[in-house]
């Protein structure tokens, strides 16, 4: 064989882009082989360290549940109480940064080189980034969060030892029903609008830029090339990737565990299916099994298909609620909520001197840490499906459109529930437990059994779409950025995730590990800010080539 063609310099990609010339070859640190006849191709340090430390943490929380719970909740309190200003400030910085990208000339840089064409249509792309990003949260909080903030805003503020003890946002709107609705909706949208999507967009953009334009492997460490240079292929990179795997797996496993509990509550309410570990384990197993089929069918045949199915179903449910609910009220409510959001945004986003400590620490900081700890997973997934878009198009579609969809969703579901409270004096949804609030609200509308059933299907399928895209992401990171690693590996991660969820559910420790995941959000906040700098540097070199 006279084939000596590999590594003879780098020809131009599709059109111009500033490829980083590195000596590192993708898969260089990988170990390939086969065990029991199944092939594997893994990045050894990252795969082994993250796999073993995940097992160690699960054993720790199950063996010493009380100690683990107190350690992790102390970590969590420390984070949200002492660094609330930092989290709030960092999220603001990221929002301003991404909005600036739309209007500056950097927005014209195309991901994948100047002549790259998009891999996915808008519909498929949008469905996938939404399903991975927050689909499940919208199902649970769409009714409950607007109701909660509305109630606390309406209530009185209380001060004890100079600290506010009520949970109302800002200065509340005691006794003022209209004011409380407006403040409650503004606070809800604040948590689901620009800020979370700006966090996702930043991580996704950093990864897409350094993968598609710079030719580096699709893994979190690549985004830090401008800071660490070639050293990123050593232990610094291993640490970044391992923490990302850790946050992703525990984030997924804990929400899978909680999700099973919540889906169980819904099934109990609707069909009288018994509550308990047995049902929940069956639910996790079923969700994992469907996710498994989805990852085996791959990105197009599995993940994209389910995401589109879910977006269609969610759209139908929202449209149904809008039409059979108080339509005119909801439409004005949407505009009114949007105006309230803009009006209260500066005050809600203010990181310093807040006296609504319970709200700004217990809600806002909690959410920011949660979104940030999910950002490696969601960001990497969005990056994977975003090739061929310009930076401007990317930011508009990952920041502005999802934010508007969230405003619309919260307005329809929260608005219907608030309308039920205000005009029908129906407080069933308000008084119910969190996972049931959506179903109580739907119960007051026609065709309740059908819509509630669709609601449960949506909850379950949103879990599947998080689980399958999460398995793809973890597999890619632990394979050193290879997307074509042997399929049994992603099967392993998918099953592992379900197994961790079941172990935590039976052994206890879901809450403990969730507070630990959120604590890692603080660590990633520093990473997030560094990414803004790296994106800026990366875009600068792209512009220089254009």
């Amino acid at each position, binding site marked *: *064989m006279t*084939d000596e063609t590999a590594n003879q310099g780098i*020809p131009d990609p599709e059109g111009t882009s500033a490829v980083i010339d590195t000596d590192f070859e993708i898969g260089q640190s990988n170990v390939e082989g086969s065990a*029991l006849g199944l092939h594997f191709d893994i990045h050894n340090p990252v795969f082994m360290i993250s796999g073993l430390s995940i097992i160690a943490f699960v054993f720790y929380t199950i063996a010493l549940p009380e100690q683990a719970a107190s350690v992790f909740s102390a970590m969590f309190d420390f984070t949200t109480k002492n660094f609330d200003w930092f989290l709030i400030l960092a999220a603001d910085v990221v929002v301003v940064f991404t909005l600036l990208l739309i209007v500056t000339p950097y927005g014209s840089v195309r991901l994948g080189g100047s002549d790259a064409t998009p*891999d996915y249509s808008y519909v498929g792309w949008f469905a996938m980034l939404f399903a991975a990003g927050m689909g499940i949260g919208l199902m649970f909080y769409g009714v409950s969060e607007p109701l909660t903030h509305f109630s606390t805003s309406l209530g009185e503020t209380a001060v004890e030892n100079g600290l506010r003890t009520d949970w109302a946002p800002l200065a509340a709107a005691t006794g003022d029903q209209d004011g409380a609705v407006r403040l409650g909706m503004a606070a809800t949208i604040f948590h689901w609008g620009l800020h979370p999507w700006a966090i996702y967009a930043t991580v996704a953009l950093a990864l897409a830029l350094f993968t598609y334009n710079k030719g580096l492997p*699709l893994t979190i460490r690549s985004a830090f090339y401008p800071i660490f240079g070639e050293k990123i292929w050593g232990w610094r990179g291993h640490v970044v990737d391992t923490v990302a795997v850790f946050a992703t797996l525990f984030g997924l496993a804990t929400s899978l565990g909680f999700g099973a509990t919540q889906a169980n509550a819904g099934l109990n309410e609707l069909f009288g299916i018994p509550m308990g570990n047995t049902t929940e384990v069956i639910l996790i197993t079923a969700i994992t099994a469907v996710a498994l089929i989805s990852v085996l069918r*791959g990105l197009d*045949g599995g993940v994209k298909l389910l995401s589109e199915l879910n977006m269609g179903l969610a759209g139908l449910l929202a449209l149904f609620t809008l039409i059979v609910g108080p339509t005119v009220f909801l439409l004005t409510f949407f505009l009114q909520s949007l105006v309230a959001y803009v009006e209260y945004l500066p005050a809600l986003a203010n990181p310093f001197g807040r006296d609504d400590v319970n709200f700004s620490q217990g809600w806002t900081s909690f959410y920011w840490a949660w979104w940030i700890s999910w950002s490696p997973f969601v960001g990497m997934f969005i990056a994977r499906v975003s090739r061929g878009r310009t930076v401007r198009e990317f930011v508009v579609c990952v920041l502005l459109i999802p934010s508007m969809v969230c405003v619309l969703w919260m307005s329809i579901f929260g608005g219907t529930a608030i309308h039920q409270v205000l005009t029908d004096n129906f407080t069933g949804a308000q008084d119910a437990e969190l996972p049931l609030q959506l179903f109580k609200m739907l119960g007051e509308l026609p065709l309740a059994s059908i819509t509630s059933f669709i609601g449960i299907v949506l909850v379950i399928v949103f879990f599947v779409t998080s689980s399958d895209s999460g398995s793809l992401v973890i597999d890619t990171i632990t394979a050193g950025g290879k997307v074509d690693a042997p399929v049994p590996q992603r099967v392993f991660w998918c099953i592992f995730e379900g197994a961790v969820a079941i172990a935590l559910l039976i052994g206890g420790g879901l809450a403990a590990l969730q507070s630990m995941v959120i604590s890692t959000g603080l660590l990633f906040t520093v990473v997030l800010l560094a990414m803004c700098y790296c994106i800026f540097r990366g875009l600068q070199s792209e512009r220089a080539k254009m």
Partner: protein
Amino acid sequence: MFTRILTPVDLAHKDRLGRALQCAADLARLHGVPVVYVGVSASVPTAVAHNPAEYKTRLSEFAAAQGAAHGIETEAHARISHDPATDLEATLLKAIDETGADLVVMASHVPGLADRIWASNGSRIAEHAKVSVMIVRDAPA
């Protein structure tokens, strides 16, 4: 008997293809027909190339080198897949149609226990392709 031979190649594991490449070349000479080398890659950077355009260049270079080494006519046919780990077989089956090949010569490992659950790419292509498929195993020990 045959008019065009298709040979799937994994540019990241060229060392495992030796016997299949030799076999394809021998058949091509025997029948005086061209060999089309088909490669499937992802749009993200891989061990072989930084982007799809570079991958196409790599595959063309590979095909040209094979042609020179074996004295046969060769072509390259690169396909980009969103998820090559799962879409490989479907992409290869499509490539058979696109190239109009009527014989597939491809490498595969000696089946083991795991193949009972997880069929190899070779066996699935043989199962679904409408054209003749020749699977070239590793040399017997």
